[in-house]
């Protein structure tokens, strides 16, 4: 193996550990060193992490090494370090959701996803940056300063899970967990040249995932390879009695599908190109790389047809009613009474005065915007015309998917209409920011799974483009078959993974 293990995939690191070629302490230390040299803070560096737990990670790593020495590893990934998006509760570790309202909060319990990761023996490196409460597409809405794209530090890493995507792109972690409500795993994956998967709604537990929009939120893997995502997805998936929306079906066959896909044979696969996800506002370089990937699928034996999903044009509007409505309800729990920030105004304030002052001081602009829009959409007189309509449009979108999947096995589109834009460019133009999620939102509304894999660099700016694959609910294995096939074909053409073309990162001053 090379001198530094940080550029290796999680699957390779797992093999190294199994072969005794390295130790978990060695791997964990190498990643902590990388974090120390490139992550920086709110003003410089990648700033993918809000909290780094060096001591805890090294202690877990030492335990993992002891288990392996005794011949009793807990899982294939036992000892491979991971980063967790700061929207999942971690017992004893700060969980802020990148909000001032939760600054310093250390939850007394683990999210189910985190519990599974600990039970499998993966050392947790730290908590990754995000848009506040996962609301945004650029990670600029973090109350603790933005994350920067490792490909160009003056550009956004996508959002809301820009921290997790940037951490794996910058080799600060081989694996990370993200969450995807309207594209927050897939769009950061696209703009950082990494892999991100939104599993079928309900197939990964939401217990301990601080809810933004509970009928849309889903946690999933953020990695540098399709196989790594499959390994992590199988680890975190499965039924959880603590989540009443958890589906009973076991999450298996994903690793097998990834391995099968990597062999490069897609004969018999029917692929539908979504007609509505193209046109004005789609960057030419994005469309060019997308078409190239579609042609590759044909070359690998797939049968490609164009498919129309006419209701998708209403997906944005439906999403920006359903999501804020759920936000306004879910974020009511931040009331300054049981946990989090409490701001007490002068005089003899009532509980209500304290709530209002706390929520004003604790929430950022985007959170306030969404809570107010949601409050409006749910108020009497508007409910039927807007929220009610949005729920019906959800049905129409699900019907479009069902009709499409009668004809094809998977649907494809570019993950995001553009490559990474400059930091600050869309910060005060919410609508322009929302358009980033045009292609990813329909999957959340319908609950179907999706993956973003690197498709190359756009000619205009040399920045990564993502290719999205969508499958029917509970057919997540298809994402891995197609994703791995595409990844292998691209790697052969590029002479290695796309990330190998990323510029070297400058070390930050320590």
């Amino acid at each position, binding site marked *: 193996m090379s001198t530094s293990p940080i550029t290796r995939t999680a699957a390779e690191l797992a093999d190294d550990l199994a072969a005794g070629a390295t130790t978990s302490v060695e791997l964990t230390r190498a990643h902590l060193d990388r974090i120390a040299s490139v992550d920086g803070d709110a003003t410089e560096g990648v700033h993918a992490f809000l909290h780094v737990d060096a001591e805890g990670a090294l202690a877990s790593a030492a335990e993992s090494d002891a288990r392996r020495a005794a011949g009793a590893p807990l899982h294939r990934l036992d000892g491979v370090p991971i980063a967790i998006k700061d929207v999942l509760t971690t017992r004893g570790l700060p969980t802020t959701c990148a909000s001032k309202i939760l600054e310093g909060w250390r939850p007394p319990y683990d999210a189910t996803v985190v519990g599974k990761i600990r039970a499998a023996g993966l050392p947790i490196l730290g908590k990754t940056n995000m848009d506040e409460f996962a609301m945004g597409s650029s990670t600029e809405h973090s109350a603790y300063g933005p994350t920067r794209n490792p490909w160009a530090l003056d550009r956004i890493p996508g959002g809301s899970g820009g921290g997790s995507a940037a951490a794996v792109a910058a080799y600060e972690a081989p694996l990370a967990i993200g969450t995807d409500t309207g594209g927050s795993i897939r769009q950061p994956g696209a703009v950082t040249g990494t892999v991100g998967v939104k599993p079928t709604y309900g197939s990964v537990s939401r217990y301990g995932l601080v809810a933004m929009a509970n009928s849309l939120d889903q946690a999933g893997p953020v990695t540098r390879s399709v196989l790594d995502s499959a390994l992590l997805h199988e680890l975190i998936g499965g039924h959880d009695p603590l989540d009443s929306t958890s589906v009973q079906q076991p999450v298996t066959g994903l690793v097998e599908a990834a391995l099968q896909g990597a062999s490069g044979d897609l004969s018999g696969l029917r692929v539908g190109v979504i007609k509505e996800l193209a046109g004005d506002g789609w960057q030419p370089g994005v469309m060019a790389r997308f078409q190239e990937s579609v042609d590759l699928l044909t070359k690998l034996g797939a049968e490609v047809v164009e498919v129309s999903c006419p209701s998708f044009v209403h997906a944005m509007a439906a999403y920006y009613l359903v999501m804020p409505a759920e936000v306004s309800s879910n974020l009511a729990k931040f009331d300054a009474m049981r946990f989090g920030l409490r701001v007490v105004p002068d005089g003899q304030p009532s509980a209500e005065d304290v709530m209002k002052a706390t929520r004003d001081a604790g929430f950022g602009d985007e959170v306030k915007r969404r809570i107010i829009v949601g409050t409006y959409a749910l108020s009497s007189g508007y409910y039927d015309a807007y929220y*009610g309509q949005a729920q019906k449009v959800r049905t129409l979108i699900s019907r479009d998917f069902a009709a499409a999947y009668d004809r094809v096995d998977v649907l494809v589109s570019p993950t995001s209409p553009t490559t990474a834009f400059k930091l600050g460019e869309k910060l005060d133009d919410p609508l322009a920011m929302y358009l980033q999620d045009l292609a990813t939102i329909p999957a959340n509304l319908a609950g179907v799974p999706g993956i973003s894999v690197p498709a190359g660099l756009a000619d205009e700016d040399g920045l990564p483009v993502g290719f999205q694959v969508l499958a029917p609910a509970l057919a997540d294995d298809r994402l891995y078959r197609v994703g791995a096939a595409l990844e292998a074909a691209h790697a052969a053409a590029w002479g290695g993974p796309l990330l190998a073309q990323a510029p070297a990162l400058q070390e930050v001053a320590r």
Partner: protein
Amino acid sequence: MPEISRDEVAHLADLARIDLDDAELDHLAPQLNVILESVASIQGVAGDDVPPTSHPIPLVNVFRDDVIRPGLTPQEALSGAPEVDEQRFSVPRILGDEQ
């Protein structure tokens, strides 16, 4: 959607228990109008015959066995509280002067 006035934004913020000051109202009100205009296109898209979807993967009658399992200790439950008094969450007065 009809134009949303600055006063209406103030009222909605009040309902949502957010104490927006004048500068914030000036900043947010026009942005909210742009957002609301962009979602207005949804009116009348789906007819009366289309059922609403509240959850993408519908599940009914989700039960689990009623068994005792470890929960949080009082100390753990109170560990993040802004103020604690005798093993309870301590809160500001909840009634107004007029009550």
